[in-house]
């Protein structure tokens, strides 16, 4: 034991001798404690406090005691599970087809597959109704079906799969892209046919990616509430909506918090599985030079089959967006198709303030969130320090918690000194930073695991300190992760609603709240116009970012050793 403690002494000494690292770790712990753990504890405390002031778990029993809530719990799990599976499946088809065949229009498919990450809240769901409802473009006008059950399971599944499969695509695109085609060559060489090569080589190698994607989709879908609020309807209760309604409709914060914490349990289980079971199965490590091989993974008929699947799905996604644009540029959505720009005139009259606010908030929170995510990923993968697991777990906790709960938690936590933040820009920014940071952490960790640590070690031996290594070596090497973290954080900051609705103030308002308010008062076309502006702004952001980071991305895609 004596020798062991000498090592610990050495470690501690080294940590203290590196004040920047120590300070960074402490600052991050403090930030996580204040902006993730503390609000959640507040909510938990509220859920325990009975009106009489006693603490008890009674709200938990009560909230799941009736059949309706139980059914909601079951529905939530089913929808989340199916979303995870089908979202992954479609994402995989896209990723595989783009990476393993020489189909035309790859760039187009890539864009389409990423587009639905901008699924404007409420309006996205409404456009599903416009397509599948009584006078739905697809159901009624194409197939002549009048009674497609768009409200409930089917409508919700369509919306969930469309809005979540891009997340799967982005991950799987990376995974399949890094599996060297020479491996398939080797399999063919050993006498495997194409199907065997796929089943025995490609599929097993993408299993970690598949599993972690599914778990992420499961968690996201479970916590989502924008789509089910419109599409689920009361006959098909969904727990995240019920938590929201319990708080906002029944005025029962305690019960709502209890429901949300029930919801947290499957999320956390999925999360822990993802963390400690899937992540254990090593990511594919890229070594050596990029290998060039002629793509021959699939036969010609298979290729065109996959191609047509992608085409069909792309058309479907396009139709959804066309539907939104259609609403934005016509007098009355679905009823009067006269072209007009009045909706936009209205939007700039009424909503300019909130458009600017949204941009400011998103542009402030995005870089902070992405950079912080990269720093935490760097610490988690490359450094050893006490409490590392705790940091790993707590930093991504907010990802699994339904937004309503986070929103309420933030008000409880930040409405009194010492953290008086309500009504400020800061509360929204902090919320977005810490809520959407986990995605950056995840992709940073995944990519960093593929980078030979010797590259950073080399920089240390050349005299670079932690800060220099991070900024000059690590960050450039994980630019793709940084990029996706930036995009994700920006998109979510622009489209967030569930937590944000509790945090917006007179000075700082958001487009999404406008969309909600406009569609609530019957101005659907105006809401569509807001959505179009949202989509355009996000696409512009992604485009500019790509232009800005283009060199670096293409570079490190090829040779992260």
């Amino acid at each position, binding site marked *: 034991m004596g020798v062991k403690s000498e090592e610990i002494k050495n470690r501690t000494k080294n940590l203290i001798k590196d004040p920047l690292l120590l300070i960074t770790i402490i600052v991050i712990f403090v930030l996580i404690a204040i902006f993730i753990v503390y609000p959640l504890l507040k909510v938990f405390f509220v859920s325990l406090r009975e009106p009489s002031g006693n603490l008890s778990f009674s709200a938990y029993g009560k909230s799941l005691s009736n059949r309706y809530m139980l059914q909601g719990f079951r529905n939530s799990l089913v929808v989340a599970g199916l979303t995870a599976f089908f979202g992954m499946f479609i994402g995989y088809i896209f990723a595989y087809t783009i990476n393993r065949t020489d189909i035309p229009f790859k760039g187009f498919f890539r864009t389409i597959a990423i587009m639905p990450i901008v699924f404007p809240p409420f309006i996205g769901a409404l456009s599903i109704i416009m397509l599948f409802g009584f006078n739905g473009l697809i159901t009624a006008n194409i197939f002549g079906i009048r009674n497609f059950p768009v409200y409930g399971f089917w409508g919700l599944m369509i919306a969930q799969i469309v809005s979540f499969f891009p997340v799967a695509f982005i991950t799987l695109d990376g995974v399949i892209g890094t599996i060297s085609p020479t491996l398939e060559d080797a399999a063919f060489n050993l006498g495997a046919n194409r199907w065997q090569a796929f089943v025995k080589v490609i599929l097993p190698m993408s299993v970690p990616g598949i599993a972690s994607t599914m778990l992420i989709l499961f968690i996201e879908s479970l916590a989502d509430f924008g789509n089910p609020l419109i599409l689920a309807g009361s006959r098909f209760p969904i727990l995240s909506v019920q938590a929201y309604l319990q708080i906002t409709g029944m005025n029962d914060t305690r019960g709502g918090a209890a429901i949300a914490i029930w919801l947290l349990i499957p999320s956390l289980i999925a999360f822990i599985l993802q963390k400690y079971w899937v992540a254990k199965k090593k990511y594919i490590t890229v070594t050596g030079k990029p290998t060039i091989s002629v793509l021959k993974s699939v036969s010609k008929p298979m290729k065109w089959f996959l191609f047509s699947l992608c085409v069909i799905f792309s058309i479907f996604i396009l139709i959804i967006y066309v539907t939104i644009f259609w609403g934005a540029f016509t007098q009355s959505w679905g009823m009067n198709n006269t072209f007009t720009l009045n909706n936009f005139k209205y939007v700039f009259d009424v909503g300019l303030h909130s458009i600017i606010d949204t941009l400011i908030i998103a542009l402030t929170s995005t870089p902070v969130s992405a950079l912080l995510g990269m720093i935490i990923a760097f610490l988690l993968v490359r450094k050893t320090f006490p409490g590392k697991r705790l940091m790993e777990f707590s930093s991504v906790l907010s990802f699994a918690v339904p937004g309503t709960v986070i929103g309420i938690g933030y008000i409880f936590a930040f409405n009194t000194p010492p953290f008086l933040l309500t009504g400020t820009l800061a509360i929204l920014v902090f919320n977005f930073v810490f809520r959407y940071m986990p995605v950056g952490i995840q992709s940073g960790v995944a990519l960093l695991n593929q980078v030979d640590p010797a590259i950073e070690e080399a920089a240390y031996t050349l005299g670079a*300190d932690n800060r220099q290594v991070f900024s000059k070596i690590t960050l450039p*090497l994980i630019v793709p992760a940084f990029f996706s973290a930036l995009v994700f954080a920006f998109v979510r900051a622009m489209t967030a609603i569930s937590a944000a609705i509790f945090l917006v103030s007179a000075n700082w308002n958001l487009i999404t709240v406008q969309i909600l308010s406009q569609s609530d008062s019957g101005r659907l076309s105006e809401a569509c116009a807001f959505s179009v502006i949202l989509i355009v702004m996000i696409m512009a952001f992604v485009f500019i970012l790509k232009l800005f980071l283009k060199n670096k991305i293409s570079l490190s895609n090829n040779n992260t050793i």
Partner: protein
Amino acid sequence: MGLELRNIKKVFKSLNTETVAVKDFNQNIEEGKLVTLLGPSGCGKTTTLRMIAGFEIPTGGRVFLNDVDVTNLPPNKRNISMVFQSYALFPHLSVEDNISFGLKIKHLNKKEIAKKINAMIDLVGLRGLEKRRPEQLSGGQQQRVALARSLIMEPLVLLFDEPLSNLDAKLRESMRLEIRRIQQGVNITSVYVTHDQVEAMSISDIIVVMNKGEVMQIGNPFEIYAKPKNSFVADFIGRVNFIDGKVESLDGEYVVLNCPLLRKKVIGINGDKLEIGDSARVVLRPESLSDKKESRENSIEGEISKFVFLGSNVEYELLIGDDKRINAVTYNPIERKLPVVNQKTELYFSKESAWIIRN
């Protein structure tokens, strides 16, 4: 002066198993010398190297650099550079930027940096490739960049972690000569890790043979080869035959061994302070065996069981008794004819070439 490792220890702990990676390592490396850590994989050589570099924190013991305790200094403060097995070039930087990376971190002025790079590029022979990216270079060129990048820092100690293992055989040979040339040219204290004994022999001033975290022997290449301290070292370095026996009598620096296998006595050098009655073994290199008696004191009789013709030499195997095989080698096979399989033969070896150690 130089690098000193004092009682270095490293234990890796995972869940409930403890693995001793390095056990009590002591070594003083003089300035300008190249020391090789040699051993099979998992012997703790790389761990030792990483402790010198500062990437691993020792479980016990101290590391001194020019008499300064650097155990608690981070890698970037130690003035030690390292060349990695994977080269670890910065893929996003050009050759030039890779080499100047450390100088820029040091905030040297531009003129000086340019001057140094110029000299270094000539030294390692990369002229004309300055603007290339690492992936546009061959393995040998990448290795040169890695070396240049480390050398330009003029570190107190240069570390090599199996730098040649990713190169093909021919390139490996020329690169190790070059590394040796450059190392001696700039007279830099170096620690070199490898599992390739030929590489170790050809490049080192001193070799440290390690096994399972323990130092087996420290010595110059000749000592390690001719005077191995134990069977592991003897076996790991080059080809070897072991013949077991019991010490019968002592004769100055020589010892006489009774070997039941040969049904003979063997006289050889007392390599391990052997006393009468100790069980011991003869360490016999194949090239020490000769078919000419001349003045050689010892002999072995057996039947040639097989041979391999390798051009410059012929390796063959002598079967003694039922299952003891002795390796031998003959050079210049064109002049001396090839061995004949199944022929009974007697081979001779001198007492100077029989190194006897404790069994």
